[in-house]
């Protein structure tokens, strides 16, 4: 077995070894049971006191959503202005300029919604103050928002009939104090001792061995990179994200960053089972997600390890695989693994440039984001999966002629309508967005924007179309990776993706929580012979089939115009 593949397997196993106990721990934390981190209680009590919050007040699903949306709005307004005026604020040793309003609009939404689509470059577009007080802050709190939303959702199914779903603030703050902050300190320290900078010093200058004068961007990056992965945020300190040698110094840090972006989404599936006392159901969900992951990972490994057929024609050796956009210290195998995880989990950080990956890899990356529920982002991945699950309950119910039920609650017209709307939302945003972009590109190439539409694309033909499709897909999935050749810092992309980002975040949170809230408040029907069981192998495969069919129907035509067309023309 070669060492590169062995590295991939070891990374995956390490993820499981950490995620499974972490899931059990989180279930206890959110259920208020005794855990070893209870020594932090006074810190939390202090935070709640200063914020004027009484965590004993239970909320129903509407109140929880109001609290969630209110605090997100506060962050939007705060961050928008700080980014615009960052040049006039302290901690700007490199003298970087303030953001234009449209770029600030895009950036702030993108970080509030846990996406981290970056239309600026970390070295020149932001200051140390905004990196920390806006972007890193949002990386923590947007993740905690997602986790707290998931716990509210769990609460609806813990008791037989309930409309009290706990206190949103309580779950939100505990996600930070009991999970994100301690783990970030640990990961940040590992990065710091492997070479990632932590000091507030600005750019450095030196004369290279050959006599060139070189400037080096630096800054307190280690803490930022830790939460960027743990929170499935993905926004990089430097422009080149985790391909940058200071952001991801060596193979070990590559493994650490990979493991840290996967553990919370993996763990939360386990948490769900422990929390609602239905462990079999959560293992079934875990199984479907794992099959989905493998269905994308194995062919991606194959296409990257096979190398670029066009370069093979030039006669060079691609012993280890395709290398354009990749770093030698990682190699193609773990890069393909990273590309799979970062797209299914909605992190969006990259250790290799997706624009330069093989056409079929691009297809798998896009599909990972379109499906967006094979583990998915912190908290929200499970909510996305739940929508597919409700559709599967509905369809199976019709097939066997029984009233659809989920965990003892009747699934009726209202819930199915919400689920159907949320299912339709993604293809609408992605396809309509890409269609508008393509229209502007072809019909208004000369529009006088910061980047003229005719110069948007870094690659001609089918691949150029893929660049636009990828950008919209990434925005809707709140992923944040890109085919970075796209010239996206202009008013069209900043505003259009900003809108897609917002809908792609909040509706898929509100929808599932509304369904859960409605279901949880309904009368509990004990299981009988006539109940459609949702924790069986058959039902799990049914859910997988629903996921595959829905996504194939929605996206196959668009994929055919982009990466699939490129793949088939390269076969010639």
């Amino acid at each position, binding site marked *: 077995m070669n060492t590169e593949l062995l590295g991939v397997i070891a990374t995956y196993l390490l993820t499981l070894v950490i995620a499974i106990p972490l899931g059990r721990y989180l279930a206890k934390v959110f259920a208020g049971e005794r855990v070893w981190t209870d020594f932090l209680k006074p810190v939390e009590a202090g935070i709640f006191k200063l914020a004027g919050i009484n965590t004993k007040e239970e909320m129903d699903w509407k109140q929880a959503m109001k609290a969630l949306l209110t605090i997100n709005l506060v962050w939007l307004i705060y961050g928008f202005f700080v980014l615009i005026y960052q040049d006039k604020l302290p901690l700007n040793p490199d003298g970087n300029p303030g953001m234009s309003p449209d770029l600030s609009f895009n950036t702030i939404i993108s970080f509030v919604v846990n996406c981290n689509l970056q239309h600026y470059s970390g070295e020149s577009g932001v200051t140390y103050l905004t990196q920390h007080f806006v972007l890193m802050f949002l990386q923590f709190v947007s993740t905690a928002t997602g986790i707290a939303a998931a716990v509210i959702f769990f609460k609806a199914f813990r008791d037989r009939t309930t409309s009290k779903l706990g206190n949103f603030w309580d779950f939100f703050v505990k996600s930070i104090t009991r999970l994100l902050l301690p783990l970030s300190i640990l990961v940040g320290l590992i990065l710091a001792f492997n070479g990632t900078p932590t000091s507030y010093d600005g750019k450095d200058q030196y004369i290279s061995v050959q006599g060139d004068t070189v400037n080096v*961007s630096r800054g307190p990056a*280690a803490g930022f990179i830790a939460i960027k992965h743990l929170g499935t945020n993905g926004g990089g300190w430097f422009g080149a994200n985790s391909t940058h040698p200071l952001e991801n110094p060596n193979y070990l840090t590559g493994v650490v960053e990979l493991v840290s972006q996967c553990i919370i989404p993996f763990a939360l599936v386990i948490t769900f089972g422990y929390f609602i006392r239905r462990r079999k159901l959560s293992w079934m969900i875990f199984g479907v997600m794992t099959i989905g992951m493998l269905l994308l990972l194995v062919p991606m490994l194959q296409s990257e390890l096979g190398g670029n057929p066009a370069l093979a024609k*030039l006669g060079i050796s691609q012993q280890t695989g*395709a290398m354009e956009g*990749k770093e030698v*210290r990682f190699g193609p195998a773990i890069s393909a693994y990273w590309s799979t995880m970062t797209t299914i989990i909605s992190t969006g950080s990259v250790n290799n440039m997706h624009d330069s990956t093989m056409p079929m890899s691009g297809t798998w990356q896009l599909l990972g984001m379109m499906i967006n529920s094979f583990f998915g982002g912190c908290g929200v991945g499970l909510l996305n999966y739940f929508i597919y699950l409700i559709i599967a309950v509905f369809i199976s119910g019709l097939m066997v002629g029984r009233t659809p039920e989920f965990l003892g609650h009747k699934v009726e017209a209202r819930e199915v309508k919400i689920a159907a709307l949320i299912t339709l939302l993604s293809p609408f945003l992605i396809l309509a967005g890409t269609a508008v972009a393509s229209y502007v590109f072809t019909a208004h190439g000369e529009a006088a924007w910061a980047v003229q539409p005719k110069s948007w694309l870094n690659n001609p033909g089918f691949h150029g179309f893929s660049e636009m499709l990828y950008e919209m897909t990434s925005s809707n999935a709140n992923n944040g990776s890109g085919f970075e050749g796209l010239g996206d810092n202009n008013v069209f992309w900043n505003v259009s993706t900003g809108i897609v980002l917002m809908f792609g975040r909040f509706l898929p949170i509100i929808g599932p929580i509304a369904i859960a809230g409605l279901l949880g408040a309904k009368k509990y029907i004990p299981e009988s012979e006539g109940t459609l069981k949702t924790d069986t192998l058959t039902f799990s495969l049914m859910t997988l089939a629903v996921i595959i069919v829905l996504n194939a129907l929605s996206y196959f035509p668009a994929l055919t115009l982009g990466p699939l067309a490129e793949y088939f023309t390269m076969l010639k």
Partner: protein
Amino acid sequence: MKKYILQSIRLTAVLLILLCVIYPVILAAAGRFSKGEGGGEKVISKGKVVGYALIGQSFTDPRYFWGRPSAVGYNAAGSAGSNKGPSNEDYLKQVADRIDTLQKYNPGLKKADIPADMVTASGSGLDPAISPQGAIIQIKRVASYRKLDESKVAELVAAHTSGPLWGLFGPSTVSVLQLNLALDQLSQTAANQHQ
């Protein structure tokens, strides 16, 4: 509703202090004890800083081992990949030119021996490493330009090849900067012996 607004603002303020002041300051304090004291590890040669250990730099002189092509010309105040798609005609021509250049400077080099990393741009544009094969194909050139024994240079390459992590995981790499500094040292020693 008004209650939520006030709570949101107060909670945000408290968390800003915890997450944006206390947290990074803890890391900055701990980072002082790392190799580069938190500012990135510097490489010093003859008393001068000649680079950063982790950041690749441009080598174009045939007397040095070359690194990978870079989309940003190894300018470490920025970072980026080429973002060229795999079927882009201009890109394929660029790669063909790189192959020609390598063959011109390394006479007798067969195309089939050129590893992909030597003719493709890295993701960051600052890749500090090349594959062992990428160094091996340059040994002959470097030795002849420096009038050094080929076997001596080959030994140097072997000594600067890092294997997989713990011998088990990931690829082998050669740090171009470290190798070239050792090479300068070797030339120096050889020159001293001749005197």
